[in-house]
């Protein structure tokens, strides 16, 4: 009888320590995991920076990347969106020989600006000016034609 009683106490103690210890280990790991994940999530620009470096580009300079449309593209409409990336919050100025369009890159450096095209070939200059007044420029040949190509 005493033997069983002692055995039960030992068993209870072991179980108690086991449960308490395991709970503490699991709780600690959970906290570390959440903390690590939160630290990975907070700088969202990391995604866009990675994309910006590897985006298939038509025209690229160090601070200005045009993702669409591709240089030398023939378009069947007289409007298009110039899409790309620059340094965050850069001023974007797009000029053709007859018109000027302006916009601004967002906090991740992404911009999309609608422009009008003249019939035929359009040499479109895209300029980005960042917050430190650094200026980067690139040029696209975009042709607007309704003829069957």
């Amino acid at each position: 009888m005493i033997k069983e009683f002692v055995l039960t106490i030992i068993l209870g103690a072991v179980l108690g320590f086991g449960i308490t210890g395991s709970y503490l280990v699991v709780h600690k790991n959970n906290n570390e995991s959440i903390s690590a994940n939160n630290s990975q999530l907070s700088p969202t620009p990391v995604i866009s920076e990675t994309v910006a470096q590897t985006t298939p580009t038509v025209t690229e300079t160090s601070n200005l990347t045009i993702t669409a449309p591709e240089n030398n593209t023939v378009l069947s409409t007289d409007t298009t969106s110039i899409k790309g990336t620059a340094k965050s919050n850069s001023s974007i100025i797009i000029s053709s020989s007859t018109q000027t369009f302006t916009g601004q890159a967002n906090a991740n450096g992404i911009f999309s600006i609608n422009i009008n095209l003249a019939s035929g070939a359009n040499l479109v200059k895209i300029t980005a000016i960042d917050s430190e007044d650094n200026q980067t420029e690139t040029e696209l040949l975009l042709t607007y034609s309704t003829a069957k190509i």
Partner: protein
Amino acid sequence: MNPLFLILSLFIPFQVSAQEAITVTPTKAPTKEVLDLVTKKVKEMLNQESTTVSTGPKSFIGTIFQISDTQLTINYKNQDKVILIDADTIFINAKKVKIKFSDIKSTQSILAMGYLNAQNQLTAKRIIITDLKTIENNNQVVIGTIVDISKSSPIFVLIPIKNKNTQYQITTDTKTDVVDQNGQEIKLSSLTAGQKIITIIKPDIKLKQTFYTTKIITQSKTSTSTPTPAN
């Protein structure tokens, strides 16, 4: 039953379960693997978009410097491009009249439209004789500080922020578009010396060493504009 076995059999499964709980801790926050996966998918989508665009019609401009029975070679800004000619190629002169391949001469400037092959040669479907001067974009973007404004004529002097050894004499007229950083129109007369602006200029046809501005964007000392893409 052996008491030791009993203790171990009760304790070990719990430890294993605890280990599993540690390794597969489910968290709703995305992990690095999820972020990598999203990045990979975005890259794939962008690649796909680029591939799609590449298959569409393309165009080249340039001045012809070599003609053979099957191709033209053109040059623009020191870059040579080969334009392949076939029976389907249509030739159009500056007056929009169809002409023959034999009418095409060296030193003529053209706009060629067609499809690129693997060698980056353009198989032309349509070739138009073009005056490159009408296409060229002489616009220049300058960010600088206004140092002087004429009271008698619509002229001001601008010194670029990044090149203080240069000065631009810039003319304006009623067509000059003046806006603030938020795109709000402001009066040309509100410009003052010492003001920082971005301006789009091109050589003034009427005045030598003078530029004409089509647009002026005033810059506030502290940027307060909302970073949203705008037209």
